[in-house]
């Protein structure tokens, strides 16, 4: 009954232990989450060999910071079922996909432009976030209003977008100018990286105005900023002027979105849209500091309790 040679015995037992532990762990995982996790060793970021498992783990770790920020909002997903690769398929998805489990919260919203109902995913719990990661929804985007007050934004949004050769450092300078301006108006701005080349500044507000009002307000601030700084442009037609930083107000519209804080981006290096302290921006930031690997280690939670600091906007 000596089934194996010595070599095989060593090999077999290692494999067996692996299979055994894997089964035990998968079983325990099942007790911890409703999501049926699959293909965890599939490569999602080929340049840096990051697997689906690592992406899922990232979102699990970020959930305590993320969930309060994205709760009750209809989400728009960018899915990369074969990983982040220019040659691979990716798609923008608003509709909850076929096979969405019944415990995932959704909200049907009629789209005027496409003349049909869209069934948006709402992510209020850890399982839904894990489910999204399991769907390869690597990027998650959210609108500036909550699902029950869709036409009343609770965020003002400034997209600070540098056009090369302008850099993130130029964008930071503009963001700091913007911050001083907003603070002078007794508003409380929060900042995050876009995860790509720009910065996002938001102000939590009491949801009582229409998007037209908030958009006009953000635009007005942009115009003032452009007057004060040569670097800033406030109009869409000027966005492609090299070396300028565009203070984009246009996203302040119903169901337009921004990438959610702590969402991974589809960059080769798995960068993250990272919530920052203003002090960090002052010191100077480096986009490579904010990736799947190091954002989980950040202790600070700059957007914590953001909705308790809502400002009343006078327009």
């Amino acid at each position: 009954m000596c089934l194996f040679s010595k070599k095989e015995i060593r090999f077999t037992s290692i494999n067996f232990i692996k299979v055994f532990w894997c089964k035990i762990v998968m079983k325990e995982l099942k007790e911890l989450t409703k999501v049926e996790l699959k293909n965890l060793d599939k490569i999602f970021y080929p340049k840096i060999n990051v697997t689906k498992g690592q992406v899922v783990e990232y979102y699990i770790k970020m959930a305590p910071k993320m969930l309060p920020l994205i709760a009750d909002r209809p989400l728009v997903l960018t899915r990369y079922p074969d990983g982040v690769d220019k040659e691979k398929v990716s798609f923008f998805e608003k509709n909850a996909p076929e096979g969405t489990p019944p415990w995932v919260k959704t909200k049907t919203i009629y789209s005027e432009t496409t003349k049909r109902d869209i069934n948006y995913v709402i992510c209020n719990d850890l399982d839904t976030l894990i489910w999204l990661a399991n769907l390869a929804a690597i990027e998650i985007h959210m609108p500036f209003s909550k699902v029950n007050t869709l036409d009343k934004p609770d965020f003002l949004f400034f997209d600070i977008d540098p056009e090369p050769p302008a850099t993130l450092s130029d964008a930071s300078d503009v963001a700091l100018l913007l911050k001083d301006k907003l603070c002078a108006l007794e508003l409380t701005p929060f900042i995050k990286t876009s995860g790509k080349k720009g910065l996002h500044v938001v102000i939590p507000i009491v949801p009582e105005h229409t998007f037209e009002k908030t958009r006009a307000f953000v635009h007005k601030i942009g115009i003032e900023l452009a007057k004060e700084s040569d670097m800033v442009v406030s109009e869409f037609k000027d966005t492609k002027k090299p070396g300028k930083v565009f203070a984009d107000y246009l996203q302040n519209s119903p169901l337009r979105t921004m990438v959610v804080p702590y969402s991974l981006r589809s960059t080769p290096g798995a960068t993250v849209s990272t919530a920052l302290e203003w002090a960090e921006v002052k010191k100077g930031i480096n986009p490579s500091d904010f990736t799947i690997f190091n954002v989980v280690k950040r202790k600070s939670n700059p957007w914590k309790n953001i909705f308790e600091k809502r400002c009343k906007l006078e327009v």
Partner: protein
Amino acid sequence: MTQENLEKEERVSASAPRRPIWSGSVTIGLVNLPVKLYPMIYDKGVSFRFLHKADGQPLKYVKMCTKDDKIVPWDEVVRGYEVAKNEYVTFDNKELNAIKPESDRQIRISKFIDYFSVDPVYFDKTYALMPDKSKEAYSLLLTALERKNKAGAGRITLRTKEYPALLHTYRGALVLTTLRYAYDVVNPQDFEDLKKLKEPSKTELDLAIKIVTDLSGEFDITEFEDSYKKRVEEIIEQKLKGEKIRVEKPPEVEAKSLMVALRETLKQLEKQQ
């Protein structure tokens, strides 16, 4: 084992050798059963040959004198047994051959035992026994052992070494498994690590037992695959076709770290509420 597994196992098993490596007889008391011995265990893992990078020629091992780095021909080689540091008692081949046990071409069975009373740690190598001349006697011993679920314990001399051996049945055949000597096997109780082994708590033990029970199943050797060998063979095929090889390290099983992260996050979320 289920019929399906059996068939799967048959498909992947190694092919039967043509020539016996030994012939002789099984001796039980005064009874003799003539048999031929065939190897049954192969190491079909991946093996490579060392080549000279510059010209692709195979390399060979040579014996070299440690003092002057000169190659020593076989007829100048003797064997040395180290009795003290750097002190050897030497033997030449003639002396050793004179005292080596001769194979007496017998598998001497001294008693019949319960097969499962021998722990696999003693199993060395298994050989298939085939009837030589008398098929009737072979069939008789085979059937008797199968009926009684017994194995014969005895010894055999193969080439120049005497082994303890087990004569047992395997899939309708008589097979012989050579065993290791007791002095070749370590007693795990001699490891320090086992000295302060704690008794598990009841809840832990219940959980562990539950897991073991839940994961209990039939052993199926075909579930195990030599993925290294498979990968090497794939690469060989690609190389033969002149394709470029991308060397990538397979990622580790990550479920464990997911579980740890999940537990931690669930704890934190509970606190937040």
